[in-house]
Structures are given as structure tokens and as C-alpha cells.
């Protein structure tokens, strides 16, 4: 039984799951209602033997709505199938149920998403920042956060300053004629349009 069959089983069991799509042998399943993520994941682990949560990541869709996409990668160590679960969260909500009660490893993944993207996980046992320090006022992986960073200061804890970009950001141009033109150079948005 392949990942696509397992995805179809999951789809039969729950409403609100879109048709699974396959790309380069990887199966993606979109869950419309983020509130359902907990029962869907529990069923996937208990009945479909997805016993290993590989990763949880988040995507900021910037101007589009809903703004955030949360991506779960599920793997079964017995059947060796990988399933990608996607669900969306609106910026006004910015909250969805935790799956840390299903896979304990989700604890830190969810903390990282909270730290970097500002999406909260309801009923998480310990939802603190994991990389930045407690009290840092921004969410650095959001699209509207500048690459150079922003000024912030908490006395006796930490401070930040915007980094000097020296005309950057510097970007490589893979596929150029020679290595000189492929080297990292200052690329402003105007130049790219030309």
C-alpha cells in the first residue's frame, strides 16, 4: 500500500480533506479546517501507522489569505510512506490545535513555528520561544520582517540592531554564462526588472 492509498483512507474517514495530489512521488493532502488537525493526525498515527512526525513547517503567504500555511510531514517506519499534510490559518486567528499530544516531537517544532512565525498552538504544554529570547518583540520569518532585522532592547537580556546591508541583499545568479556573473552581487528589485 502506497502513500496515496493511505491518503485516500484518511480522506474517507474525515470530511474537509481535498483530493490528494502527487508530485515526484510525494503525496500532499490539504486539510481545509485547521481545527480538525488533531483528530486527523491521531487517526493517521493510530490507524494508518504514521508513527514518525518528520517535521512541521510554516509558510507565510504574505498578501494572500489565509496568510499562514502549516505543513506536517508524516512518515511510517513500518510502511515507509511519507505523507504531507497542509492546512491554513488566517492571520486574524493565528491559532490551531497542538499535535504534541500525539507525537511528543511536535513540541519543539511548534515552539519554533511560534517563535519564527507567530502562530500559536492551543493546549501546547510549553509554548515559549525556542530560538530567540523571551520578550523579543518580532517574528523574524514573516515576509514583512526586513532581512537586516529591527532594533529591539531588553536590558540585561539582549538587544538587536539592524545589520548593515551595504547595498545588498547579495544574491547569486545560478545558470549565468560564467562564474564571474554568477557570483553574489548586489541586486536591487529595480535591476531585476530590467
Amino acid at each position, binding site marked *: 500500500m502506497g502513500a496515496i492509498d493511505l491518503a485516500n483512507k484518511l480522506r474517507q474517514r474525515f470530511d474537509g480533506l481535498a483530493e490528494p495530489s502527487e508530485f515526484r512521488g510525494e503525496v500532499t493532502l490539504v486539510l481545509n479546517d485547521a481545527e480538525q488537525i488533531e483528530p486527523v493526525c491521531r487517526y493517521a498515527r493510530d490507524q494508518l501507522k504514521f508513527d514518525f512526525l518528520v517535521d512541521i513547517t510554516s509558510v507565510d503567504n504574505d498578501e494572500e489569505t489565509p496568510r499562514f500555511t502549516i505543513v506536517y510531514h508524516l512518515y511510517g517506519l513500518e510502511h515507509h510512506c511519507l505523507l504531507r499534510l497542509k492546512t491554513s490559518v488566517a492571520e486574524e486567528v493565528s491559532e490551531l490545535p497542538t499535535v504534541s499530544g500525539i507525537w511528543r516531537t511536535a513540541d519543539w517544532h511548534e515552539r519554533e513555528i511560534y517563535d519564527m512565525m507567530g502562530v500559536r498552538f492551543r493546549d501546547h504544554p510549553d509554548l515559549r520561544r525556542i530560538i530567540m*529570547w523571551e520578550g523579543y518583540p518580532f517574528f523574524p520569518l514573516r515576509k514583512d520582517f526586513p532581512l537586516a532585522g529591527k532594533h529591539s532592547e531588553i536590558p540585561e537580556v*539582549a538587544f538587536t*540592531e539592524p545589520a548593515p546591508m551595504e547595498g545588498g541583499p547579495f544574491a547569486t545568479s545560478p545558470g549565468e554564462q560564467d562564474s564571474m556573473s554568477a557570483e553574489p552581487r548586489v541586486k536591487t528589485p529595480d535591476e531585476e526588472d530590467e
Partner: protein
Amino acid sequence: MQGNTANTKTEVGYNTKIEGDVIVTRADAVLNWFRKNSLWPMPMGLACCAIELMAAGNSRFDISRFGSEVMRFSPRQSDVMIVAGTVTYKMALALKRIYDQMAEPKWVIAMGACASTGGMYRSYAVLQGVDRIVPVDIYVAGCPPRPEALLDGLMRLQDKVSKEPTIENQKRVAA
């Protein structure tokens, strides 16, 4: 006095046949001579530069030739903080605290591009040069610098130490 006349200010000229067991020198010179040949490092290893720092301690490069083999993980016992690696803002305050805990006299070597300027990390998370929080004496270029480069930086720091007006500094602190 015998010996190197060009460096009479700091070098100790000594000839047993003439002077017996007596050495005549300046207090500054002898104190600096003690100091520069026992610069015990506080290894502030934060990234890949720390690997080169460790290599500098191994037998091939042998930092003990310069009296700096005693890596002290206690700031109270160290003289020179070698900041080897990327200093994030989260680490910056810990680094500052360790520097503050080091006893005077103390020096700082910023080893590698990251410690000197932030290096390739033009980022929200990385301190853009450790000289923004502690005074740096020697900057070592490289990403990471080879152990030879670190040893060269150490020798330059020794030169700097040997020229310091130690007694004047002591008087100034006492005043």
C-alpha cells in the same frame, strides 16, 4: 648591555660572564615579559573557528610555544578572550558577562570574519562584530582563519603587551 640594541626598551640583555646572577632591566619590561609569555586564553568557541582554535592547540601547531596552551574555562584565570565564531545577539550578553568577569589585565582577540564584523551573517540574529560590546585588541582575518593566522595574531598581541606602560597603568588604577 649585550644583546639586541634595537629593542633595549623591552628586551632583557643578560650575559652571565659579566653580570653573574644579576639582571638589570626596567620593571615595565620584566612585567610585560611575564605577561606576554603566559597569555592564558578564555576559549570563547562559538562556531567553526573554534575547530581551528582547537587545531592551534594541537601538536602540529602547538600554541604552547607561545605560552598560551592553558585554555581556561574559568574567566577568573584567563588573560585573553579568543572570540572564535559567530556571536549571536542571544550569546552577546553572556559573552559580555564572561568578559566582565575576567580579571585585569585582559585582552580580546576577535578570531575570524564573524567575530570581527558579523561576517557573512547580515542577519537579524547576529551581532555585527564583537567590538560592539567588548574592546578588541587583535582582529584575525579568515573564514575560518588557519591556525597559523591565529598564532600570528597571538604574536602581534604579545608585541602589543610588551609595549604597554604597565607601571603607569597600575598607578592610574590605584589613583
